[in-house]
């Protein structure tokens, strides 16, 4: 089990699938000769050649459309959206074309394409290069969406995504690319889509999180003596594993969602609404969403760190929840912003 950085794990997953399946192709802006702006496809051009690994012009609508056509006709394209924001110039192909392709073909065509997109704050890229935007994708039946939380999950989810016969968007938190961890490669390293990972056991509260917030949630969970938290990495956001989450929360009686997204209508909103209603009368406390404020992502190290949930803040929010049985005010209420 080698240790590698998350960007290397992505490249490893792509390479391992490409070696097994000659129909897998990779394209995007600067993914070939340069090995990817975040080095997530390093070495692929050298190994698989320019027919299967390609640099595209700057034209996300064009090359995602191309992915749809390639997927429908026998390839398994993996297209890179360098920053999730750029999907704003190409969303149509994912949500209105790819997601409905199988449906619109009466089940005859499939559209096995993967869109990889880096997401999130933490690297000082400012408000047009730091968002997560899961909400663009979570109301489009036919689409799947997963999010990596580290090297192993990046590897394992990517391999499943490529094999899946449906269009899958895989989000990769940019701030995690440089982080190292052990990675099991091969079949055992594959993580099925649609399943959670229970990363930590605990009894008082279930923390559901994903992506870059996993380590924050884990740090908070480990540091607290006041309560014992189970931590769940949701892994697949669409379709999410409702049964697993509901039964976990039923056991602890409390659900806290830790999420890197503005408060209003982040991905955790659905988890909160669903579980809150399903377990009505069974919960010991209201569902708590610990998120970012409803503001554009600020630039500047201090502000960016403040913007995202961190260990202390998560701990404090859960402390308050446990103590009062009410949803605590988020930190920004004191700063003149509404929840």
């Amino acid at each position, binding site marked *: 089990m080698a240790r590698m950085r998350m960007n290397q794990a992505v490249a490893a997953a792509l390479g391992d699938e490409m070696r097994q399946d000659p129909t897998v192709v990779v394209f995007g802006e600067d993914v070939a000769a340069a090995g990817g702006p975040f080095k997530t496809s390093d070495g692929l051009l050298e190994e698989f050649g320019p027919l299967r690994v390609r640099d595209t012009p700057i034209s996300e609508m064009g090359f995602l459309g191309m992915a749809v056509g390639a997927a429908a006709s026998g390839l398994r394209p993996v297209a890179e959206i360098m920053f999730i924001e750029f999907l704003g110039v190409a969303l149509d192909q994912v949500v209105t074309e790819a997601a409905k392709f199988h449906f619109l073909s009466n089940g005859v065509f499939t559209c096995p394409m993967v869109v990889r997109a880096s997401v999130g704050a933490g690297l000082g890229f400012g408000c047009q290069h730091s968002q997560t935007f899961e909400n663009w994708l979570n109301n489009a039946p036919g689409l799947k969406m997963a999010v990596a939380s580290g090297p192993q999950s990046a590897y394992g989810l990517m391999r499943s995504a490529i094999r899946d016969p*449906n269009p899958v968007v895989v989000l990769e938190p940019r701030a995690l690319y440089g982080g190292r961890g052990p990675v099991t490669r091969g079949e055992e390293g594959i993580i099925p889509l649609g399943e959670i990972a229970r990363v930590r056991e605990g009894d008082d509260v279930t923390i559901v999180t994903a992506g870059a917030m996993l380590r924050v949630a884990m740090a908070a969970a480990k540091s607290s003596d006041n309560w014992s938290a189970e931590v769940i990495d949701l892994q697949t956001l669409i379709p999410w594993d409702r049964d697993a989450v509901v039964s976990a929360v039923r056991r602890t009686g409390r659900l806290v969602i830790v999420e890197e997204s503005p408060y209003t209508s982040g991905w955790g909103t659905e988890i909160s609404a669903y579980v809150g209603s399903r377990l009505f009368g069974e919960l010991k406390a209201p569902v708590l969403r610990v998120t970012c404020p409803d503001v554009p992502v600020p630039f500047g190290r201090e502000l960016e760190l403040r913007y995202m949930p961190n260990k202390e803040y998560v701990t404090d929010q859960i402390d308050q929840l446990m103590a009062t049985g009410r949803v605590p005010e988020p930190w920004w209420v004191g700063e003149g912003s509404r929840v």
Partner: protein
Amino acid sequence: MGDRTKMERRLALAADRVARYERMVEIRAFEDRVQGLFAEGVVHGTTHTAQGQEAVAVGIAAVARPTDTVTCTYRGHGMGLALGMTPESILGEIMGREMGCIGGIAGSMHLVDKELGLLPTFAIIGAGIPVAAGAALTAQVKGTDDAAIGVFGDGASNIGAFHEGLNLAAIWKLPVVFVCENNQYGEYSRINLTTPIEDLADRAVSYGIPGIMVDGQDPDATVKAVSEALDRARSGEGPTLLEMKTYRYAGHSRADKAEYRPEGEFERWFQRDPINTFRARLESEGLLAEGQADEVDRQVAARIEAAMETVKASPPAGVDAMFRNIYAPV
């Protein structure tokens, strides 16, 4: 004609100009009938018919192989029929019947036939253009000599996906033919009101590929142009932009009476009606005998009527259809 399979229908066009003529007549009759259906109010939703543009669809279908991929728009009945789809499978879709090509769950804008190479048609302007390039990418990567054909309108040449799709195809020399059906209108706007140049073929300059104007009213011309462009594609020389000058006889969609058209415009185009002109040519060449054309008309009308009866008598899509094919099984 009789009850040929869709593959027989498709292959019939390859060598036989009379078959092309018949198919054009069929498309015209089918579209007229569909327009009537909507006028009667028996069908829900909207429809976009393609009378006047028959020579484009037939020109493509006559030379493309079934293993080639075609992307097409919501104005797709004519293309579907040309490619070989049966009137029943299209009409069934339009009327929401189980026998429709998508089980009747999608309506007139969405047709599909994998065996004939037709991807689900696109209701979003421009969307099918880069998708066609994607199918061409498959052929290039797999090393087959199949090609793709992306069909779209004049109005679509103003949208970003057109630019990006052609640029990508050009830089990678993909085996794809872009067919712009310039029917002079995008919805209710004449092309000159939205597009600052006369000949859309000129846009090929931006991509360093051939841009060729084609008489879209002449099936011999469309066949020739598509054939040459496909040869180019298959031999690795990259994409071609074909601008087929044609005319949309009907309004844009169901409710549109096309009152915005300048006086005399329709009449001028109708003088070069693709069906009439082609019939005259085939007659003068002796390929259509005296009276044969009328007989074709009658047979086609009967065939469409029979299809209509079959579809009308068939069951509508059930509620269960709503839940099928959302996700392909892993």
